C-alpha cells in the first residue's frame, strides 16, 4: 500500500522539474562472451543513436517511436540502478539486451553469455569524461546469473 502511495504521489502532485540540471548521462554497453571465464574485449553500445536522422523519420517518430522510448526507459533504469542498486533495473536491462541480441540473429551457440556495464558521461570543464560505474555479472541467454 505504501509503495502504491509512493508511486502515485508524484503523479497527483507532480514536480515538473524538467532538465533542471544536466546530470551525468548513462550509456549501456554489453559484450557477448563464448565462455563464462572470457574477459570482454569488445563492448558495444546498446541502442546507439543513428549518425543522422532525416526529417521524414523524425516526423514518423511522432507517432511510432518504441525503440527510442525503450532506450529512454533504460536510461532511467541505469540511473535508478546507480541511485539505489535496484535489482529490478538489472533484470530489465538484461532482458532487453537479450531481446535485442536475439532480434539481431546472433548465434547464441557461439556466444551464449553476455555481460553489461554502465558508462556515465559528464562534462568537467570543457572536457567530456567517461566513468564505468557498474559492471554486471555474466548472464546466460536462456538462464540467470552464471558468475
Amino acid at each position: 500500500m505504501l509503495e502504491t502511495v509512493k508511486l502515485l504521489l508524484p503523479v497527483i502532485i507532480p514536480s515538473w522539474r524538467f532538465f533542471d540540471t544536466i546530470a551525468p548521462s548513462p550509456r549501456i554497453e554489453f559484450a557477448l562472451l563464448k565462455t563464462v571465464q572470457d574477459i570482454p574485449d569488445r563492448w558495444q553500445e546498446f541502442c546507439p543513436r543513428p549518425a543522422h536522422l532525416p526529417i521524414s523519420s523524425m516526423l514518423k517518430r511522432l507517432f511510432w517511436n518504441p525503440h527510442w522510448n525503450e532506450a529512454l526507459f533504460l536510461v532511467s533504469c541505469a540511473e535508478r540502478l546507480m541511485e539505489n542498486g535496484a535489482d529490478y533495473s538489472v533484470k530489465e536491462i538484461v532482458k532487453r539486451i537479450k531481446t535485442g541480441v536475439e532480434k539481431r540473429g546472433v548465434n547464441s551457440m557461439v556466444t551464449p553469455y553476455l555481460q553489461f556495464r554502465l558508462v556515465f558521461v559528464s562534462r568537467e570543464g570543457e572536457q567530456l569524461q567517461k566513468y564505468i560505474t557498474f559492471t554486471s555479472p555474466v548472464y546466460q541467454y536462456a538462464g540467470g546469473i552464471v558468475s
Partner: protein
Amino acid sequence: MSLDLAIRVTEIALAMAFLQQSIEHMQVPGDERHLFLLRIILSIFLLFGFQAQWVCLALGILGVFILKRFQGPYNGGSDRMGMLILCCLALIHFMPALRWQEYIFGYLAMQCALSYFIAGWVKIVNPEWRNGHALQDVFRFSAYPVSESLRTWADWPRLLCLMSWVVMLFELLFPLALFSHITLITGLVIAAGFHFANACLLGLNRFLWIWLAAYPSILWLQERIFVHG
C-alpha cells in the same frame, strides 16, 4: 467552451494519446504487452465515450499496475501527465456537484500552466542554463539527441544561449497568457511548437500528445475565470 465539452475533448485527446503510447508496447512479449493491450481496449471505449465514468476508473487502476510494473513511470513526465489527467477525469465523473467538478478540472488546468512555469523557474535559477552551457550539455552528451549529427549543435554556443533564454522566458511567462483568450491561444500554439521541436530533436514524442490532451482544461479555465467570472 462548456465544462462538458472540455471534458469530452480531453477524454478523446487522452484516449488517442494512450492508444499511440500503448501500440508502441505491442511488440514486447509478456506481461507488458498484456497490460497495454488492455489499455488499448479501454482507450477505444473512452474514445467513443462508452461508459466513460467506469472506463476512466478502470484506466486509473490499470495505470497503477503499469506504474508498479515499471517501478515508476516508463516515460517520465509524459506518464505523470497522463495519469494526472486520468485521475482528474475519473474524479470528475464521480463528483456529485458541479462546483467540485470545476475545482478538479481547474486543478488540472493549473498543473498544466505550472508545468511550464516551474520548468522555467528551475532553469533560470541555474547559472548553467543562464549562460547556455546546460543546453550545450543536452546536445553534447545527454541521452536525448536523436542522432549523432545533432550533437554538433553543441558547437554553436551563442545560438544555444539564445535558445535557452527563449525557452526559459516562454516557460516563465506562460501563466500570463491566461489573461485573454487571444494570448492563451497564442501561448498554446507556441507551447505545442515547443513540444513538437522536443519530439523531433530529443525524441520526446509522447510529451507532445499528452500535453495537448491537457489544453482543453486550460482553455476552459481561462473562459471560466475571465469571461464568466
